């Protein structure tokens, strides 16, 4: 399949579904209005300038918190993966934290750090660090023992071992984790924006919901979906360029 037919094929499914919805949907439906009404509503929001600002704000939160979660998750996952003793010691505490729903963190975090950019990033990073950590942990534990022995027998410095053996081996895990984490970051960012009325798509979504503005809700959801596609595209590109630099390690 060439690039062109791939592009067409991937567009086919969503466009067919939206087409059917558009043809059969009732434009006056208070709950599931067809796509054409979304576009009208999106145009209104764009004209008012709300949508652009909200998208920027949400994107900023998502990117910064994914960065934080990516780094923290990688360090945590690699440490836990390489050191049984550490992972045994902190496992239940981490499992506990992992089970706390983000909406319940928001009020506490709002009290402790106030409703600022710090709140968005903290809560989102807290919720998205886990996929990265678990994937990196798995990748670290899957490094072939002979490869680790190789690092030892060549007496590589710890830094060189990290750079030449651990990093290339866990990089696919980091990327796999980030690919789960990034859309999750979008979701949680919206949630924080809704719960703490932080600027962003979440707040617009909340307003639209409260105003019973169904086309507006769908217009925003479509925007969120498109952001997700863009973020995923970025990660696919990252994965491909990593695969070019690390041939055969991306299996």
């Amino acid at each position: 399949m060439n690039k062109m037919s791939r592009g067409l094929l991937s567009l086919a499914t969503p466009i067919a579904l939206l087409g059917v919805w558009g043809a059969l949907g009732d434009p006056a439906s208070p709950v599931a209005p067809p796509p054409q009404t979304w576009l009208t509503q999106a145009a209104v929001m764009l004209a008012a300038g709300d949508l652009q600002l909200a998208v920027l704000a949400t994107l900023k939160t998502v990117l910064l918190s994914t960065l934080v979660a990516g780094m923290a998750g990688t360090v945590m996952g690699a440490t836990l993966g390489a050191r049984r003793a550490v992972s045994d010691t902190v496992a239940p505490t981490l499992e506990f934290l992992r089970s706390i729903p983000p909406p319940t963190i928001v009020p506490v975090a709002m009290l402790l750090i106030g409703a600022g950019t710090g709140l968005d990033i903290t809560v989102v990073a807290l919720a998205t660090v886990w996929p990265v950590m678990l994937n990196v942990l798995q990748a670290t534990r899957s490094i072939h023992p002979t490869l680790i022995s190789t690092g030892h027998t060549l007496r590589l410095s710890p830094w060189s071992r990290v750079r030449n053996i651990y990093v290339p081996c866990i990089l696919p895990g980091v990327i796999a984790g980030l690919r789960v984490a990034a859309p999750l970051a979008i979701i949680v960012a919206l949630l924080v924006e809704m719960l703490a009325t932080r600027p962003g798509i979440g707040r617009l979504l909340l307003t639209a919901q409260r105003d019973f503005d169904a086309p507006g809700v769908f217009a925003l959801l479509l925007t969120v979906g498109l952001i997700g596609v863009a973020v995923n595209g970025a990660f696919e590109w990252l994965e491909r360029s990593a695969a070019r630099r690390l041939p055969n390690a991306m299996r």
Partner: protein
Amino acid sequence: MTSASGEKTILQGIDLNIGRGEFLCMVGGSGTGKTTLLRALGGFCAPTGGAVFYEGAAFSGPPAGVVTVFQDYGNALLPWRTVRGNVALGIEEQVSGAALDDRIDAALAMVGLQQAAREYPAKLSGGMQQRLQIARALALQPKVLLMDEPFGALDAMTKAKLQDQLRHIQASTGATIVFITHDVDEAVYLGDRVILLAGSPGRIASELRPALPATRDQISTKEMPEYLHARHELLERLHGAAR
């Protein structure tokens, strides 16, 4: 000197002294613990009883100057580095620039991999991968070289060439070499001393010092009566041990 075990006892009552500059070959049936013994010498697993000493000191982790060449070459190479990059791995922190290039080229030349220098390991044949691992170890100019069936995947010609190469390296650098092989000819041709592991748990069943000259030659040495005698003797003992 050592005895090592996992969940079950793999080696028992091993008492082995390896002299500086010695070329020690290790033979023995499949699963008798050769690899395990080599791993203990290389600092990869501590014995559960007894101890291993290197230059008079016990150690944990591979001591300086000791390099192991692993049996499963497929997993010992970095798939994301080219052949050159893999050889560079152990020495790039110590030397750099033209000196590094020279060391790499020299190591690749010793194993005959100059042609493949820019390939990735996945594109190499089994034998080429194993030679690459050997080149990487040689590039380090080690004082002790521990090799686990390094020539197992090689054809007779390449093998013979590398055998001579190895004896030559040992003679010129005074390195100590411990060498596992299944090839009796190889063990007798290479080794100053050959030990034979047998049984389960494994122990040193027998020891043999082929009375061969220091400089050896694939044709004349293998025709010497001392060679033939040592070879015969080792085969006998192997058969005996297996019974």
